[in-house]
């Protein structure tokens, strides 16, 4: 089996170059976790703890977690990173671009594993995916490409869709790149983007009046901590005006949003934990290439579809991984 031989050769070469220390130690590893959003959500939740326990860690025996949440106020992030540095954590895991940026600026020598940052090269978090350099590695995103896919899915769901209002956090470079990718795809496919950049919760009111004045055919909500914090208002507006809307993560569809498409977040967080595991055991972030997501999730809420009078085509149902009825 020539294929098997080829795989064995490549794997053996990979393993030889990544030989890890085999020694066990009685050390207690300290893992910092920081996000811009609400406590107990995302990587601050139980899922991340499981990602470590399944790798052999035992909470409070050989691993301790230091959790920090900026609760929507990104100005707090640098201070939170300083707290983690003062707590002598061995590695910092971040979710979202603002937290990653604060970590890059304030974490000093402490290694950082960043996830859900948008395009980490375009936002200058790392030099390249293959050789990040510096003290940051993580799980990259194909997020800017997914913007195009999201628009295509909207179009397949509602073939008559032409104008799409895009809501995004205009202060977040990572999110702005996603809006720009949507613009590019819309031009290519003959759709029209209505840009509704927001900076603060009050801006949502302005965005809603804009949409009332010039009703779009659909909404695309670029998802970060600011838009997540205001998701209920967006969903309510969409419901009241019978507007189809696409988000980026399945939890928003469970919350009432119509559709979402994005990387499988549980898989991303698991990969982030895997990278942190290697780092605390001696690997250098500069040498650890960023990983790309390989699993994606398409979620649809049929209750919401019914509420806005939308019939979902069979081809879309076939593509859905998560259907809420």
């Amino acid at each position, binding site marked *: *089996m020539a*294929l*098997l031989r*080829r*795989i*064995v050769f*490549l*794997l*053996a070469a*990979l*393993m*030889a170059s990544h*030989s890890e220390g085999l020694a066990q130690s009685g050390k207690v590893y300290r893992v910092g976790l920081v996000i811009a959003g609400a406590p107990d959500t995302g990587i601050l939740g139980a899922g991340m703890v499981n990602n470590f326990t399944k790798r052999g860690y035992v909470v409070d025996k050989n691993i301790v977690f230091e959790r920090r949440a900026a609760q929507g106020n990104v100005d707090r992030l640098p201070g939170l990173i300083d707290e983690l540095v003062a707590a002598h954590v061995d590695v910092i895991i971040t979710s979202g671009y603002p937290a990653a940026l604060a970590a890059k600026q304030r974490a000093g020598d402490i290694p950082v594993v960043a996830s859900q940052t948008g395009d980490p090269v375009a936002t200058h978090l790392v030099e*390249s*995916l*293959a050789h990040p350099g510096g003290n940051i590695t993580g799980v*990259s995103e*194909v997020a800017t*490409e*997914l913007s*195009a*896919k999201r*628009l*295509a899915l909207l179009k397949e769901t509602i073939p008559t869709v032409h104008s799409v209002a895009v809501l995004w956090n205009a202060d977040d470079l990572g999110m702005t790149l996603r809006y720009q990718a949507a613009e590019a*795809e819309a031009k290519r*496919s003959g759709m029209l983007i209505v840009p509704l950049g927001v900076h603060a919760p009050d801006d949502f009111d302005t965005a809603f009046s804009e949409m009332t004045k010039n009703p779009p055919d659909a909404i695309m909500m670029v998802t970060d901590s600011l838009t997540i914090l205001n998701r209920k208002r967006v969903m309510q507006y969409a419901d009241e005006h019978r507007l189809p809307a696409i988000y980026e993560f399945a939890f928003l569809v469970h919350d009432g949003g119509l559709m979402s498409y994005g990387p499988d977040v549980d898989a991303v967080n698991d990969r982030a934990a895997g990278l942190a595991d290697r780092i605390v055991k001696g690997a250098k972030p500069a040498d*650890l*290439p*960023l*990983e*790309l997501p*390989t*699993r*994606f999730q398409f979620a649809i809420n049929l209750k919401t579809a019914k509420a806005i009078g939308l019939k979902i085509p069979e*081809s879309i149902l*076939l*593509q859905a*991984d998560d259907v809420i009825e």
Partner: protein
Amino acid sequence: MVVPLLVNGASEAWFGYRDQRATLNSRLHAEAISAAGKIAAFLDDITDQLQWTVQLPWRDGMEERHRFDVLRLMHQVPAVVEVMLVDGDGVERLHVSRVDPDVVDSRIDRANDPAVLGARSDRIWYGPVTLHEAPSPI
């Protein structure tokens, strides 16, 4: 008396090092074989699923049906990120991707792609395993 001790110490250190390397190498080799077996099984499974999808050759007028077959395949096999269907002349007729918008009927001539040539002569063709900007092999 120092020199023989030094030589003894050095040769012990040398042989000790060689033994450790040998143990490490055989361990790594065993792990590589085990992992390779898992990858081969994984690929065999995908191959089986793919064969169902391309049982029927491309037929004009059956575009929807072909797309549905591919969507069903990708639903069953989350590991598949994209599928390209070419017709009897090696021309691309459908490109379904999880990452990019689907491309229907691009008519890109892929008759001379290694993948197409390989699949035609050997029925199945495996691309080179590459590391594409990430440690997970594509």
